[in-house]
């Protein structure tokens, strides 16, 4: 009988409840403050590479997919003013054939920002004008779409676009 009572007391003892522990490792939050310039190779900027980017390669750089999306912070001085996005990228020699004549189209929501045609392999900077009407918020989301990509070959099953390097939102000149 004593044993039963002890077991019942043990069971009803709310003190046995485990304290709740937060598990910050189980969520990955978006950056609170958006940067106007990001580096695709920098892990600290990953939160602004929203979609269409593959994992970093051993050298730290990464491939984009044929379509990708980023977000950039709009600094106070640029709010509501015309600006431009500078996109530094690399078209590798190895993909030159597949990407010959590549055109990149940038848009934000329904608004098309423009197109940029790659002159060939190498390091380039694509520039897209951004109307001030799109810069009234704390950030801007930009979708990039490539009209060509490197087809999956051999053990590589991904559809590869370009090697993005940097994205910057700067005042229009």
């Amino acid at each position, binding site marked *: 009988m004593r044993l039963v009572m002890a077991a019942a007391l*043990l*069971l*009803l*003892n*709310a003190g*046995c*409840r*485990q304290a*709740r522990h*937060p*598990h*910050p*490792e*189980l*969520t*990955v*939050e*978006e950056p609170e403050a958006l940067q106007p310039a990001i580096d695709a190779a920098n892990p600290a900027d990953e939160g602004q590479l*929203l*979609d269409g980017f593959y994992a970093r390669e051993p050298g730290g750089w990464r491939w984009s997919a044929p379509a990708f*999306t980023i*977000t950039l912070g709009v600094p106070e001085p640029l709010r509501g003013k015309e600006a431009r996005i500078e996109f530094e990228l690399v078209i590798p020699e190895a993909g030159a054939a597949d990407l010959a004549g590549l055109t990149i189209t940038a848009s934000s*929501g*329904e608004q098309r920002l423009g197109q940029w045609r790659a002159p060939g392999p190498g390091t380039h900077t694509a520039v897209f004008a951004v109307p001030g009407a799109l810069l009234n918020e704390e*950030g801007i*989301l930009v979708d990039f779409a490539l009209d060509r990509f490197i087809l999956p070959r051999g053990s590589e099953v991904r559809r590869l676009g370009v090697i993005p390097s940097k994205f910057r939102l700067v005042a229009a000149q």
Partner: protein
Amino acid sequence: MKRLRWRDAWLVLPALFVLVCLDWHGLRSWFHQDDFAWLSLGAGARSFEDLLGALFRPAAQGTVRVFSERLFFLLLERAFGMDHRPFHLVVLATQAANLALLGWITLRLSGSRLAAAAAPAVWMAGVGLAAPMAWLSAYNQVLTAFCLLAAFACLLEWLETGRRRWLAAQWVFFVIGLGSLEVAVVYPALAGAWCWLARRSVPRPLWWMLGAAAAFAAAHMAFIPKQSEGVYARHWDLSMLRTYGQYWSLALGGNLDPPQWPVSWLPRRAVAVIGGLAAAAWLVLAWRRGAKLAVFGFAWFTLALAPVLPLRDHVSDYYLAIPSIGVAWIAATALQAAWGRGALTLAAALIPVALHLLYAGAAHRSMADWRYERGVNSKRLYLALERAIELHPGKLIVLTGVDGELFWAGFFDSRQLLPQRVCLDPRETAAVSAPAGFGDISGAICTPPETVAAARERRLVAYRWISGRLHAQTRLYVHRLPEEWRDLPPAEIDLAGQEAARWLGSGWHQAEPGGRWTSLHAEVTLAAPDRAGRLLFITAYRPVEPQGEAVHLSVRVDGKQARRFLLPRQNAAFTLTVALPAPGGSPSMRVELAIDRPFQAPGDARQLGIVVSRMHWQ
């Protein structure tokens, strides 16, 4: 009859060894599926009435399993919260008692220590016990097995000693069994079958018990609603024979897919056929020899399975948990009979039993491990959601990337334990759709109007489930909301807010703290209901006028009269409920409010009707 002594405790060691080998992972699995629904019982029980409801209100296909589900979860959750280990300890302790009882009964009825050691081990290895050992919601099988075995042990004592206390104890276990799982209703038939086999007569007290079982079955049929379609629909026809055969096949050969077969060239059905033929041959021989326990094993399997045979479309491995005790007796008595009768006879008994152990055991282990994995993923998602809510209190949390497996294991029921609304992106409904008969899942899915309204009001947080973590993607999610959703009206309007103005038609005055006055006729646009059966709630207020006459409010939906109310004469807010028509294809609906008498406010020249503070449907 042979009596068990303490020195015979080793007889359960083989079964405990099997348990450890097969259920090592299963016994550590975290909560999943229906576990969350039972865990949430305590949260809703704030008064004595609530507690009674939590204990006795039919749930989950109209069942009332007070001991094995309600009390089990209520008490342990109250004491230990979301710690799964005490729950599993109770399961383990109950099953250990079951194994001891089975060994005790087998030794008494067979007189063989070999059979008494083999029966619990064979039962433990069966595929039927995999889910009950790993899934806490299936504890009902383990507890009911205990009640049946304990009641049967009491029957044996009563038959031997004639003492009425054993009869009374048998009743107690029978009643607890009925409150644990409806299958316990077969106990009087099991007890009667043994009495008839052993004595060719059924004692009168057992007929009373049979009467009680019949009354329970009749009450269950009459008062508990049954599903007429879906997987839980009952089919009282010849399909029951096929279902019976399916269960034999499952019990003997397990349910593994070809890549998992322990012997790659030996299909599980072949193992079931070999086991079935061997069992049939032994049963014929046992009948002729008067080996009652073997024949009783067949009766036990058949009678304990009988209640689920009408569930043609819901053949489940864990329904074998209790019937498999019968298989264990058939196998154990076969080994006992073959022992010492030459190598050939022994091989004839040993090979089918070994094949059964190999295949059913492998299936058991595979199932237990699968449950463990489900628990791991379910725990990660649940804790991640807790964290998300901690970070974003009061916001609507929308999830993407949750597949059907995780949805059912760790999301659909766990939402009930979370303090705020978390739902799945409506475009992912197809990935998680339930088979017919599994009920309505719409509560777990966000509606487009609530999603877009939350986005508009900046109280939406979107997460994507990627590799066991929730990745916040609110900016991208809002950016990519479908264009056609952007102009959807909301399903809920706060009339005191400026946001509401966009959806108001004629007949509204300026927003004021606490709501907005209508004139005698006012119009508002809301999202059309997403399915039939939705209710519109109008929270409003109209001060009582001295000697005022009755005031009526008519509500029209899309031009059709929906309801007419006599407004309550009270100086306090009231909520009116209107049943909405089924969706007609339009994304929005127009709601008209018409008041038959104006309110005269001193010094206010406006035409006033009522003050509406909130309108929403759900």
